[in-house]
């Protein structure tokens, strides 16, 4: 049960960061925390003996897939952040209002 409390707590810390941070890089860092804690919960539940995955190695394989997806997300996200910083000279989400209706 401590596994669930730690990982879900970490996920909610990351969620709080996404909701309250005002800088794009800091928001991306909080998203990384959410992704990492979700993988942690999956592996932790499997290690505790929960019946996950149809075949052996499925949990680890899913974990590797999540890491690959997170790396891809970080690469595209940071490229967009750098592009935004070049164009608008800021990464504060409050000041990026050009497409706001």
């Amino acid at each position, binding site marked *: *049960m*401590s596994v*669930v*409390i*730690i990982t*879900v*707590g*970490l*996920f*909610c*810390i*990351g*969620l*709080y*960061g996404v*909701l*309250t*941070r*005002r*800088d*794009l*890089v*800091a928001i*991306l*860092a*909080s998203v*990384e*925390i959410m992704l*990492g*804690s979700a993988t*942690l919960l999956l*592996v932790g*539940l*499997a*290690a*505790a*003996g*929960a019946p996950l995955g149809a*075949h*052996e*190695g499925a*949990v*680890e394989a899913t*974990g*590797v*897939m999540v*890491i*690959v997806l*997170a*790396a*891809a997300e*970080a690469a595209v996200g*940071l*490229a967009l*952040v*750098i*592009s935004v*910083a*070049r164009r608008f000279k800021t*990464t504060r989400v409050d000041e990026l209002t050009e497409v706001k209706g």
Partner: protein
Amino acid sequence: MSLASIVFAVLGVVAVAGGITTVFARDVTRMAIGLGAFLLAVAGFFVYWGATFLGVVQLFVYIGGVLVLMIFAIMLVHRSPEGSPELESRHDVAAIAVAGGLFFLVVTSLRGAVPDSVDQGISSGTAELTDAFLGPMLTHFEMGGVLLLAVLVAVVVILGGDER
């Protein structure tokens, strides 16, 4: 108190402290260090549970790749003459309510999913992982490769467009 539970507690404390530092730090460098501590603790958890390969991949990809990429982005974006800038947050009751409410909901709904048995760890090793990737999860594996190629092209398109 056994050695295993001490290791678990230390990893948990490092992970939570790193997460809190990442979310609350006002200094960019402290945020990056907090994220590094969190990712390191996650890799430690993987090794602790017996998913050694996953721990090594986490170390390589996250700490060697994503964290360095993030520090590079911070260095490129936050260039100001007056020292390192302060990261602002807008703390309010609604964000605390959403995060706390989600914590309560997920923990209570997952209570039944956690088996009462003692930690047995992940029994499968690298051989089972390879079998999974070249067998039932082959499509995932191939899609991962396609995704990484698409990401590579996308990053070049996003960043290389206005260089002329």
